[in-house]
């Protein structure tokens, strides 16, 4: 079985400052994971801001070159995609969904023009009815229809609808992998579950693998198959989502879980900041040790 996506020992360093005060920042350090083809799954990357999760997503999308290591998608690495035709072929298979739907769409253009542009460039369609069919097909998958959004501007749609249109745009070339970078953090709580349920339906019904990037542990628990927790560019814990989130082992994972606001004690005024000793252990040992495999299939940095 070939891998859909193979990330091997990938690192990314950014240089900051001028010639005299040059500093190196490690955004991503030695990250490896594999998504198998044929078994669609939701792979979740969790971390705070600055943990390198978005940099990793940009490298997978080919928007950033890794400093070390290799990212191979369906047998081809980024170097082999230098020419336009190969690049387009890659974009047909991997599509992004971004965080803020209000920023992703130009407020002065009808939203369908984005769908149309994707259908033209990636599917090479020229015929008007074929384009409309492709748009309608993708919109049907997200619970909308072309008739509903025809001629609409972004401000005429709610945040949840707009994010669904963004996902529909990504689905037009029928990709094998969708990279969703915090797709729900800008969407209202009441509409959030419609996006999360949609990602799950895409996996179950249409066989699309999803890399779901978030800092929300509760939705991650709800939809993920596997999970990877990142701290300052390092993977600290990786494995099957539910066991990892139920009993996290690395101090940083425990700190994240403790910080989740529970509704069990609603209205009791219980609001203890996370245990300081755990937090200190988590921060001081950031990045030290190596990943060790545990009997239940998870990897923990020790």
């Amino acid at each position: 079985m070939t891998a859909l996506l193979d990330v091997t020992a990938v690192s990314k360093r950014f240089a900051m400052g001028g010639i005299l005060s040059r500093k190196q920042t490690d955004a991503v350090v030695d990250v490896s994971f594999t998504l198998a083809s044929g078994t669609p799954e939701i792979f979740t990357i969790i971390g705070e801001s600055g943990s390198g999760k978005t940099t990793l997503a940009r490298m997978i999308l080919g928007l950033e070159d890794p400093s070390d290591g290799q990212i191979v998608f369906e047998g081809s690495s980024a170097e082999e995609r230098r020419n336009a035709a190969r690049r387009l072929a890659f974009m047909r298979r991997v599509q992004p969904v971004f965080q803020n739907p209000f920023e992703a769409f130009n407020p002065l253009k009808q939203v369908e023009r984005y769908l149309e542009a994707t259908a033209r460039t990636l599917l090479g369609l020229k015929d008007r009815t074929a384009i409309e069919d492709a748009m309608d097909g993708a919109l049907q998958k997200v619970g909308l229809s072309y008739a509903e959004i025809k001629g609409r501007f972004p401000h005429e749609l709610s945040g949840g609808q707009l994010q669904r249109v963004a996902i529909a745009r990504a689905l037009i070339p029928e990709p094998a992998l969708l990279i969703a970078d915090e797709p729900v953090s800008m969407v209202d709580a009441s509409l959030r579950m419609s996006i999360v349920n949609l990602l799950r339906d895409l996996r179950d019904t249409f066989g699309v693998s999803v890399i779901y990037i978030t800092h929300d542990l509760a939705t991650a628990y709800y939809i993920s198959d596997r999970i990877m927790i990142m701290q300052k560019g390092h993977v600290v814990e990786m494995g099957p989502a539910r066991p990892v989130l139920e009993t996290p082992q690395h101090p940083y994972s425990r700190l994240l879980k403790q910080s989740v606001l529970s509704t069990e004690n609603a209205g009791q005024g219980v609001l203890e900041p996370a245990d300081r000793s755990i937090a200190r252990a988590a921060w001081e040992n950031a990045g030290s040790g190596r990943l060790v495999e545990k009997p239940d299939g998870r990897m923990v940095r020790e």
Partner: protein
Amino acid sequence: MADSTDILTVKGLKAYYRMAYFGIDREVRAVDDITLSIRRNEVYGIAGESSSGKTSLIKVLAAAIRPPLEVVDGALTYRFGDIEIDPYKASSEEVNAIRWKHLSYIMQGSMSVLNPVRRIRHSFSDFAFQPMGVDKKTFWERTRAHLERLNLSPDILRAYPHELSGGMRQRVTIALATVCQPEFIIADEPTTALDVVVQKDVLAMIRDVQRQMGSSVVFVTHDMSVHANIADRIGIVYAGRLVEEGPTRTLFTAPKHPYTAHLVGSLPRIGDTTTKAALEGRPPNLADPPSGCRFHPRCPLAIDKCKTEVPPLETVGQSHRSACWRADEVKPLAPVAGQPAQVTP
């Protein structure tokens, strides 16, 4: 209704955005007939989705509205000690006299509150020196003491905003809003832009400072899990109207409005693998809201009466009010584990 323990009473408040372009009058009813009272020494949570009018409501409460938003009807009374004031009837000098000293505001975007080209101490003297009404030396002594009480080093007064992390900046804006020991604090989504770990620390800080000073806090966010942890009472706003109000625990265990039941029931939780349904439809357009109960197009319990008659906000339990024709039939979607509902008077 008017009780000596109430710091703020709002009666029949209506505030509309009114526009007249090219001879066409448009009216957006962002705050529509809201009646509530806020007690001393409590955290009152306001929950609702975007464009439900919750930001308009707190702008009206803070007396910080600008045209086209205007107060059309209703009364708003603050009671600070022996001062009793309706900011829309008082002169602007009287309103300025209560600002920051009695009534302050924690804003959402900490980066846009603090002046990026000046040190933090300038923000403090700009905001708080005049309302505090003491000489410079006492002012800085009190400011330093206040920062220390909030576990912030007084050294941050010398820093520029960009030198601080997002969580630290948000803490500075909380210190800034509370330095004059105000009795009434409005917090507009102060933690929405923060990471999970930092969010909990900032919430704990707001809660601590509220307990220390015995102030009242109006806390606005759409995230029900934040409300569960910080609010004593919650008011749910839908399409410009207050649809349910009650003690936090009661709303989480025995909601009496289908919208609240949905908000509470659809929260995903670690350890819970059941499928959570999303609410169908979209938030209503406030320029042309649905007739009758504004929630009826999305409501699973809607009957014909809901389409024509507006349900009044009626008492359904101890300090628990709900605006629903079928309040008795509302069932919580997923009961919260733990002990049964406790109603704190």
